[in-house]
Structures are given as C-alpha cells and as structure tokens.
C-alpha cells in the first residue's frame, strides 16, 4: 500500500500542474494562508455554537437561530478547504500522502463532519429534541470541539512527520 502511495506521489509530483505549484514560490504559502483562514472560520463557528450549547454565548437567542447563523456557512467554507487542501497535496504529494498524520487528520475530519451535520440537522429539524437531553448535547459539543482541535493539531503536525 505504501509503495503504491509512493509511486502515485511520484507520478503526481512529476505532472506539469504540480511543477507549477512547486516552482512558483508564493503559491504554497498563499494556499496555506487561505486554508488557515478557512479553518479559522469553520473552527470558530463550531466553537461559538458549542459555547451556546453550554449557555456561554448568546443565551438570549434560541439554539436553532445560533446554529443556523454559524453552522450553515461551514459547508461552503469546507469546500474551499477541500480545494486548497487538494492543491497543496498536488504541490507536495509526499508531504501528506505518505504521512500517517495526514490520514489521522482526514479520519478526524470525517468524524467532525458527521458530528456537525448530526447536530445541525437535529437542532434545526426538531428544536425540542435536545431540550430534555442536555447531557447528550453537551457531550456531543465537547467531543465535537475535541475532534476539531485534533484536526488543527494534526494539520500543524503534518509538517513535522513528513517522510524524508
């Protein structure tokens, strides 16, 4: 499997598109800057909604209204993250594709997406559902923030665990 990934990374790195990303010095830092700014939007939105769940943010607003304001914009921003992330992989395939940290990050991302979608759907579809289930929703909020933080940590760690 690893040999296959190395071969694929080599091929990807040899494409003309990858060469452009590698050789124009400002492209990678610019993509990373856009990527981090989008991470800031998604992470802060998730944190604010979870603070609302703990009644530490906009207590005077119903959870549904806060969720609609902050969780709905997450999805288009995630698309930009996917795009900038893909371009970064094309530019430096080995950095992530042959790197366990990258796969940990992607697994955590999958969990975060499921948890966030679950929270958003439930809160918006049946506003009363979590009223009597405060422990459940607080557990969901805590796990969700831990997973999002894990994604940010893993993201930074990719730079330190890349293969030679």
């Amino acid at each position, binding site marked *: 499997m690893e040999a296959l990934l190395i071969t694929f990374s080599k091929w990807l790195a040899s494409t003309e598109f990858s060469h452009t990303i590698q050789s124009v010095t400002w492209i990678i830092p610019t993509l990373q800057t856009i990527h981090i700014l989008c991470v800031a939007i998604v992470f*802060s939105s998730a944190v604010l909604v979870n603070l609302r769940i703990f009644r530490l943010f906009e207590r005077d607003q119903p959870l549904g209204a806060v969720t609609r304001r902050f969780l709905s914009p997450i999805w288009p921003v995630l698309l930009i993250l996917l795009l900038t992330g893909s371009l970064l992989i094309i530019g430096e395939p080995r950095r992530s594709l042959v790197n366990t940290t990258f796969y940990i990050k992607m697994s955590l991302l999958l969990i975060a997406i499921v948890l966030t979608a679950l929270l958003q759907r439930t809160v918006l579809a049946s506003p009363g559902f979590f009223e009597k289930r405060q422990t459940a929703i607080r557990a969901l909020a805590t796990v969700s923030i831990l997973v999002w933080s894990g994604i940010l940590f893993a993201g930074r760690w990719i*730079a330190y665990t890349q293969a030679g």
Partner: protein
Amino acid sequence: MSLFQQLIAFFEDSSIADAIRENDLLFPLIESVHVVAICLVVGSILVLDLRLLGFASLDRPVGRLTSAVLPLTWSAFIVAACSGFLLFMSHATKYLANGYFITKMALIGAAGLNMIVFHAVAARDLPKWEARRLPPPRVRVAGALSVLLWIAVVACGRWIGFTMEELQ
C-alpha cells in the same frame, strides 16, 4: 549591548527557551496551540467585522454581539500571545531578523489601534446605529480594515515559516 539586546539574550538563553529548542515535541506542540488560538482570534473577530460591514448577524445589535463574542476573542488572544512568545523566545534573534515577523507584530499593533480608534470615535454614538442592518460608512471602514489587517497577520505568520528554514 543595549538593554533591549540584553533582554532578548536573557529570554533566548533561558532554560525554557533551551527546552523548546532541544525537545522535538515541544515546538510543534506550542505551535499547534498557537494555531488553534489564532484561529479563534481571527474567526471571532471576523464575526464582528462581518456585522460591522452589514454582511452577517444583521438581526443582532452590534453592542450585544460584541459583548457576546469578545470574551472568546480576548481569551484566545491571551493564549495566542503567550504561546507566540514562547515560540519567539526559542529563536528570538532569528525572529527579530525576519521581516515577516516584524511586519506581523506591526500589523497586530495596527489591528489593535484600529479597534481602539473604533471604540473611541466610531462607536461613540453606538446606540444610535447599532440595531441598523447596515451601519454608517465610518463603521464599515473600521470593519473592512480589521478584516484586511487580520488576513495580513495570518499571511505574515505563514510566511515566517517559509523564510526561517530550520523552523519548517
């Protein structure tokens, strides 16, 4: 040696700075905390800026939104500043010689100044316009300036990593 240089040397030669340099895990760990904190600072300030620009949270009065968001912004800023200072300590001389680092500090100063000016001047008659969906032009200018400054702060932060080889 000037007092400033002595101070820098004091931090850079400290055992804490030494530990951050020597330990393989400490630097990336502090860096990760720094990234999480910066994301919260920038993300939460963006919530306010988008409101000032008349783009989002339009049903929330500006004053109320500000007092709801700022506790998160300031807590995150304290964590970002402390973790940032620890990173700085470990390679102080190299950071001070890096143009992007100096620019980043200046931009954070400018963002702070923009906030102070906004609170002192633009927000003096806050009750008059805070419920309006589209705030007056001077308020929107402050919001736009803040967005641009913080984007530039993040960009400089990323560029530091590319201009200081040994830090990745």
